[in-house]
């Protein structure tokens, strides 16, 4: 129960590591619920250029089973902390093309404030702690991105 007394009783949690392209709209639909009026969606997409280099794609690698359970745990903990109706964290592995989503985060809440805060907290957690690495495939070579970029 939150202070307003109208938080959903049990948050729905969706998480996973996917090797196929992510469909953000379909993922959002999987966590919509009538008792929540705020949905914040974050898509982390592959950007080019990055630090002056033309990026062709990103190659993601994960410690797959551990990363999957991490995403589930992060989503659950954030959902509880912010009294969410649902939380979703799905991350790609393998090659992701420029413009395509590498990660989708969704926070579903009764009101918008909690949804915005929760979505930010969840992506920060995934980026900082998830055992997921990325290699930038550039027009002039390849480089693993280690540490904040």
């Amino acid at each position, binding site marked *: 129960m939150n202070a307003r007394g109208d938080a959903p009783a049990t948050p729905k949690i969706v998480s996973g590591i996917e090797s196929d392209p992510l469909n953000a709209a379909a993922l959002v639909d999987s966590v919509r619920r009538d008792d929540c009026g705020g949905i914040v969606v974050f898509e982390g997409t592959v950007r080019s250029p990055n630090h002056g280099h033309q990026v062709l794609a990103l190659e993601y*690698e994960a410690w797959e089973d551990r990363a999957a359970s991490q995403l589930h745990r992060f989503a659950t903990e954030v959902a509880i902390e912010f009294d969410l109706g649902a939380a979703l964290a799905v991350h790609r592995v393998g090659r992701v093309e420029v413009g395509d989503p590498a990660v989708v985060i969704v926070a579903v809440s009764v009101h918008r404030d909690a949804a915005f805060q929760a979505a930010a907290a969840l992506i920060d957690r995934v980026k*900082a702690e998830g055992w997921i*690495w990325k290699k930038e495939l550039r027009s002039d070579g390849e480089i693993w991105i*280690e*540490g*904040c970029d």
Partner: protein
Amino acid sequence: MTQVLLFARARELAGTRSAEISGTTVAEVLIQAEQLFGPEFAELCASCSVVVDDVLVHRFEYATASAGAELAILPPVSGGSDHVTAQAGPELRVAVLTVSDRAFAGEYEDLTGPAVEAVATSRMEATVVLRAVVADDRSEILRILTEWCEGDQVDLILTNGGTGLARRDVTPEATRQILDVEAPGITELMRAAGLEHTPLAALSRQVAGRRGRTILLNLPGSVRGATESLEAVVHILGHACETARSGEP
């Protein structure tokens, strides 16, 4: 045998996703892996997290933590360098004292002090909080070491120089004078490593030990001697410092 799992750049440098490596402690397994997979891997390894049987192992615990059945070597993740550093616990505060008449007089530039700092910061997650250059003068060395040990400002003091058999060499004597306890095993390990390169290592007189909550360690004066000696013990110094800090003040 421990099943070592390798990811991302560590996997690429090793050329394999997993390897069976022997060793009873985390430090032993990592050293074996570094020897097996080469210097670039070793350099990356210093910034990796290590998870043993699902538990993140603190860098200070490498020497004592059991290697377990499965040990994962995990490079920094893309969004996480700040966080991983925070998880790795308190940083080691290191002070570096160069003991050399000539460097003190400005006759040549002190190269050993910076080389020691480079090894300390790259291999031990250390921050250099104090540094000084002093002549081979027993009372001056003693004064500085005593001052640095006061007020819980330094975890580890690394001196370099003044450890040979020249009549001006007095660093071990000054150090021993302020130690509460000696830890001869540390310098035995350094000497053993040095003897693999030169029998002259047997002439070094370094001492190591603890004063209060600070570990003190003498290193030789040459760049090579100092860095190789420090490299030989970096994997146990963190634990030494942690032990020295533990318990009531």
